């Protein structure tokens, strides 16, 4: 019987396997940031261990860094200590780091692909659940905890139980104004936040093949929101074209050898997935979340749901609690909701294409009264590129704030936070209670919906303009 893509990559990385034990898997790339690494480096020091492969490791500062005044010392002393600790650890252990102010600094999942160190067929880990982003290249990429970060630093391997595989077939063609963000929000609404648990999701079908690399990254990014540790898309010409000529792409004869291998990275026609689901892209509309988990989403044209209509008692309770927290009444049209803040950024939608798409909608318009918009590029490189294209002027003329790179309001760890009761339309990936700031109310949307919402001040899609 044939193998799925996930099974092929897995098999190519097994260092050791023994009956009744997890497989020991080799890790091709380890990405590091300031929040989940200090305790791991501490563990190494205590045990007198080294970083086994600094040349397969790279660090950046993203979660905790300010997006304003980055030329000045970090104002919050606790944040500063964490960033300083990362810098000192990288120096001590010989790990490459891209610090604030460096052109390659940025969100770890934006930095890997833009440097070309994210390539098909690799195993990639990071102490961050959105490592699934890199699956867009046909790499097996997943988030790990700090104990595992230490394990990878010390051994460049991880003991892991082989996950099951699920095919997610996205058939048909997206309508204009509907994006990859809407695909993934619809998938999560369909299978739920636990639906992907224990699986690697492989996204397939015409609608996926038609996407750019950045669109594919948006989808794989949010696999974790469906409970899956990893999401995958088989590499193709679009992938090779994207990787080619990036700084760390293979060169010359190595490029040819790499492509020859990458071309084998497809699920075999007779491969059997443990589960299959299908989504019809033709029928898809712009999507938005109304609740406090990413599975609580609906088409933008819908109304706030009535918990009384939900049969399952757990889900009904969760919906009731979500409506209270979100300050919503059942039956209200989602499009009538007034939004205070629009956040364009994050590892889900903070890449150049996302900024271009939003700028296209905003160009020549003015922001709605009493609305603020934060535009936070995913990396310093994306920011430079956007400035080269004049996008910064478009955003600033519109009335948005043009910031430096980082995670920013995606998780509200730095000063970019919502206040109590403030409602946001956000291109990020999590609408959990308090995620963007204590008491903040998050609606997850695509960059196009974010832009249209900033113009009208209520949840909107470009079609409403």
């Amino acid at each position, binding site marked *: 019987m044939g193998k799925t893509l996930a099974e092929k990559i897995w098999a190519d990385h097994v260092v050791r396997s023994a009956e009744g034990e997890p497989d020991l898997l080799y890790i091709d790339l380890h990405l590091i940031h300031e929040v989940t690494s200090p305790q791991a480096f501490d563990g190494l020091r205590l045990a007198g261990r080294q970083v086994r492969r600094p040349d397969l490791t790279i660090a950046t500062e993203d979660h905790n860094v300010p997006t304003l005044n980055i030329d000045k010392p970090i104002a919050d002393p606790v944040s500063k200590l964490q960033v300083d600790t990362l810098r000192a650890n990288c120096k001590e252990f010989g790990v490459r780091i891209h610090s604030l102010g460096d052109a390659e600094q940025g969100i770890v999942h934006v930095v890997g692909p833009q440097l070309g160190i994210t390539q098909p067929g690799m195993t990639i880990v990071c102490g961050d659940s959105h490592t699934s982003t890199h699956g867009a290249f046909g790499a097996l990429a997943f988030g790990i905890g700090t*104990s595992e970060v230490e394990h990878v630093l010390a*051994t460049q391997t991880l003991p892991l139980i082989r996950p099951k595989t699920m095919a997610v077939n996205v058939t048909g063609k997206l309508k204009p104004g509907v994006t990859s963000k809407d695909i993934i929000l619809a998938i999560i609404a369909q299978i739920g936040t636990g639906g992907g648990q224990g699986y690697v999701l492989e996204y397939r079908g015409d609608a996926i093949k038609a996407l750019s690399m950045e669109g594919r990254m948006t989808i794989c990014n949010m696999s974790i929101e469906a409970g899956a540790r990893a999401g995958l898309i088989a590499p193709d010409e679009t992938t090779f074209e994207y990787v080619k000529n990036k700084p760390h792409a293979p060169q010359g004869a190595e490029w040819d050898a790499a492509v020859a291998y990458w071309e084998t990275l497809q699920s075999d026609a007779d491969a059997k997935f443990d589960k299959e689901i299908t989504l019809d892209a033709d029928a898809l509309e712009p999507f938005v979340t109304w609740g406090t988990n990413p599975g609580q989403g609906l088409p933008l044209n819908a109304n706030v749901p009535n918990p009384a209509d939900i049969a399952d008692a757990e889900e009904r309770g969760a919906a009731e609690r979500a409506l209270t927290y979100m300050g919503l009444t059942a039956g209200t049209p989602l499009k009538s909701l007034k939004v205070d803040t629009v956040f364009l950024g994050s590892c889900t939608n903070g890449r150049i294409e996302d900024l271009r798409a939003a700028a296209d909608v905003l160009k020549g318009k003015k922001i709605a009264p009493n609305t603020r918009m934060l535009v936070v590029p995913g990396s310093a490189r994306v920011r430079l590129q956007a400035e080269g294209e004049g996008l910064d002027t478009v955003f600033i003329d519109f009335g948005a704030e043009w910031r430096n790179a980082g995670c920013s309001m995606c998780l509200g760890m730095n000063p970019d936070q919502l206040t109590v009761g403030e409602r946001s339309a956000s291109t990020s990936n999590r609408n959990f209670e308090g995620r963007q700031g204590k008491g903040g109310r998050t609606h997850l949307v695509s960059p196009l919906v974010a832009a249209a919402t900033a113009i009208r001040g209520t949840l909107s899609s470009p079609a409403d303009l």
Partner: protein
Amino acid sequence: MEKFITHTGTAIPLRRSNVDTDQIIPAVYLKRVTKSGFEDGLFAAWRNDPEFVLNKPEFQGATVLVAGADFGTGSSREHAVWALQNFGFKAVLSSRFADIFRGNSQKAGLLTVVLPQEQIEAIWEAVEADPKTQVTVDLEAKNVRYGSVTVPFAIDDYTRWRLMEGLDDIGLTLKNIDDVTAFEKKRPAFKPETLPVRS
């Protein structure tokens, strides 16, 4: 890591599903560079509410958390596990855990036990009726006991062995480090390296 064989203590019923790691410990508490002191951030937003179950006097000192389905979804922060441990929890029971949270718990020695939802509800009712109910989580016997009830649970033998011996994974892997070296010799040359820096 401390060995886990069996533990007996009182329990807290957390009647919520989809408790994500941002609720277990909000991001603003993640700035510390140690593994201790996270108890102040545990369920920080909910603890402002005097009615929240962790604040109720009758549940003080509990060491077993009994939670709704899909506990620990979201961010990979192991700080969520440390916060639960720092607060005093030894075991968490739920009908479903998020994968990364479960993995992190098993590395750090916090036992996560999967029970069917109706068993979780039965325990909720028992401890709500009598908060002094002693709940035993027995990894050796693979069961949970309270009052006259015994509920078996499943866990893979390897994880159980590691937890019962208190073994750290890195030490185990280093025993096989020659296999890693041999694997490295066969890796294709086209695989990228982060050093030297190219631009």
